[in-house]
């Protein structure tokens, strides 16, 4: 902005200086030329003046010589002067007009009249011998000649004055010229200074912009490096936290898949987990932390531990969510969490679950279309007063529960079509695919392309029992191998089992 103003000022000064130079130059030239012209005119005029005076002198001398000698040849200069004088006089008058000396033109007229009078009253009288009073004639002739010379002298005086004026004028011209040179030079100097200032300012601005660009580049590099580091940390955290082996039970088959987001910033807080809680039952959970990056990964690890410790005290899904919700609401600005926790019982084929703002689980039963199960309550951490509800579903042998995170259905940002694609993928599962159901579903939906968001899918399938087993389910021993829950904690879960899972499948338990 400031530089633009400077440039405008500079341009103005430059234009003014240039115009002054051009116009001033012309004016000075014109003035100087007129001084020189006037001087030449004055010189010519003076020459004419002297020529006229010489003619008059020739006339007079010739007449005086004739008067003494009476010889005709003495009259030759007189005749010549009589011829040239009118021409010279006309020329003189013209030059005086040019010099605008009108009083001198009158003086020339007067001199011409005096000369004519002298010719008629003196010269012709003497030449034609009409008088004997030569002395008298000569005296009056002398008076006329003096008169003539007075006129001429007056003119010469005026011309001298003109000369003097001309000198003054040329002095003025010189001082004008000096002033002009000083002003024009000053203006040009100012323009040059302004231009330099402008250049310096422009250069400084350029340097500043360059510096800013370099700084921005450096910052960007730093941010990018930090970004990369964050992505690595988030991914490592994900890997470290997640990849716990899923329990293996004879009566319940579990499968899961987790695919981190391709885009570094999107790696986030999806999790899934399952624990063998004995007696042919598993406790399962899946969830998603709002947001992405390290914060989400760390929050995920915290919430996931909370789920585990809450489940150790009370296996009721709604109770677990209520407990985590209280914790989440304590944290200032903690991200919201959507989650499903539940228990699958391979004895009764009952699934009880509670949901906090999570997409609905899908139940696949042989011979019917996959069904979207009921939604739950608000996400964890939204409101302390949220009431979570345990839903009970009585499934059939061979039923499969599909749990997933929102990345599965929000891939195209259209949940309706996403949901439809998922339901189709689940419905299309073949018997052979059931052991790796999560991967099969993922492949059906996404093929080779990676998701924009993190994606987690977990399936919980009851294995169809042999007839003999169905009638008499056998509880697993508490010290079963491959059990991820420490034996000390496990007893607590065992003891709370009966209270946690109500026998009435339609009952919905409210947790304050």
């Amino acid at each position: 902005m400031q530089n633009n103003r400077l440039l405008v000022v500079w341009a103005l000064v430059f234009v003014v200086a240039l115009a002054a130079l051009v116009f001033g130059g012309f004016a000075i030239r014109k003035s100087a030329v007129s001084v020189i012209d006037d001087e030449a005119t004055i010189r010519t005029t003076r020459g004419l003046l002297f020529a006229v005076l010489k003619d008059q002198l020739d006339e007079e001398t010739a007449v005086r010589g004739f008067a003494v000698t009476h010889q005709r040849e003495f009259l030759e200069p007189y005749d010549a002067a009589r011829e040239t004088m009118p021409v010279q006089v006309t020329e003189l008058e013209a030059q005086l007009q040019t010099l605008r000396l009108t009083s001198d033109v009158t003086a020339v007229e007067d001199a011409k009249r005096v000369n004519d009078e002298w010719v008629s009253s003196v010269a012709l009288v003497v030449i034609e011998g009409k008088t004997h009073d030569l002395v008298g004639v000569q005296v009056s002739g002398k008076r006329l000649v003096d008169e003539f010379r007075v006129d001429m002298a007056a003119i010469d005086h005026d011309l001298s004055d003109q000369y003097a004026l001309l000198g003054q004028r040329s002095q003025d011209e010189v001082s004008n010229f000096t002033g002009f040179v000083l002003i024009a030079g000053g203006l040009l100097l100012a323009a040059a200074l302004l231009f330099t200032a402008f250049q310096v300012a422009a250069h400084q601005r350029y340097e500043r912009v360059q510096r800013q660009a370099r700084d921005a580049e450096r910052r960007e590099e730093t941010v990018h490096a930090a970004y990369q580091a964050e992505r690595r940390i988030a991914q490592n955290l994900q890997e470290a936290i997640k990849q716990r082996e899923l329990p293996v039970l004879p009566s319940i088959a579990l499968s899961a898949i987790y695919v981190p987001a391709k885009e570094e910033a999107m790696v986030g807080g999806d999790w899934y987990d399952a624990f063998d809680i004995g007696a042919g039952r598993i406790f399962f959970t899946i969830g998603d932390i709002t947001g992405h990056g390290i914060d989400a990964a760390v929050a995920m690890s915290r919430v996931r531990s909370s789920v585990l410790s809450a489940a150790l005290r009370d296996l009721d899904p709604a109770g677990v969510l209520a407990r985590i919700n209280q914790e989440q609401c304590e944290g200032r600005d903690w991200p919201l969490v959507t989650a499903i926790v539940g228990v699958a019982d391979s004895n009764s084929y009952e699934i009880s679950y509670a949901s906090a703002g999570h997409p609905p689980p899908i139940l696949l039963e042989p011979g019917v279309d996959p069904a979207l199960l009921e939604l739950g309550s608000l996400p964890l951490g939204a409101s302390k007063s949220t009431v979570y509800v345990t839903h009970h579903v009585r499934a059939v042998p061979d039923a499969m529960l599909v749990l997933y995170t929102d990345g599965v259905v929000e891939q195209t940002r259209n949940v309706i079509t996403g949901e439809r694609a998922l339901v189709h993928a689940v419905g299309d599962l073949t018997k052979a695919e059931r052991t790796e159901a999560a991967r099969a579903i993922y492949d059906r939906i996404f093929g080779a392309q990676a998701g924009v968001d993190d994606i987690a899918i977990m399936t919980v399938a009851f294995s169809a029992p042999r007839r003999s087993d169905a009638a008499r389910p056998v509880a697993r021993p508490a010290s079963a191998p491959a059990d991820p829950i420490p034996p000390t904690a496990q007893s607590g879960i065992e003891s709370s089992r009966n209270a946690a899972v109500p026998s009435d499948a339609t009952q919905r338990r409210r947790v304050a």
Partner: protein
Amino acid sequence: MNPEPSIGVITLNGELDIARKDELRSALSVTQSAHPVLIDLVGVTYADSTALSELLRFSLEAQERNVPVALLAISPQFLRVIEYARLDQALRVFTDRERALEYLHAS
């Protein structure tokens, strides 16, 4: 058709995702008064969990201050996302503008 001046209207369009978190926050922070609020999301087709969190937190805070909030949305896929997050439990969701305004005037 025009809401009375005593109702604050927040209008958002397009897809609300984490990239628009700040925009969403400032839009929602405009209304801090006790006037009922209409969140006009007719032009919204998608919201990610971050955007839903913001809407949810805003609605819950408004509830605490006894400020009625109505959400207006028509896109089926967006309504389904709202359902997922159970925003419908935290605030009144309408698909009809008149009904939403009626509700806000009545409360």
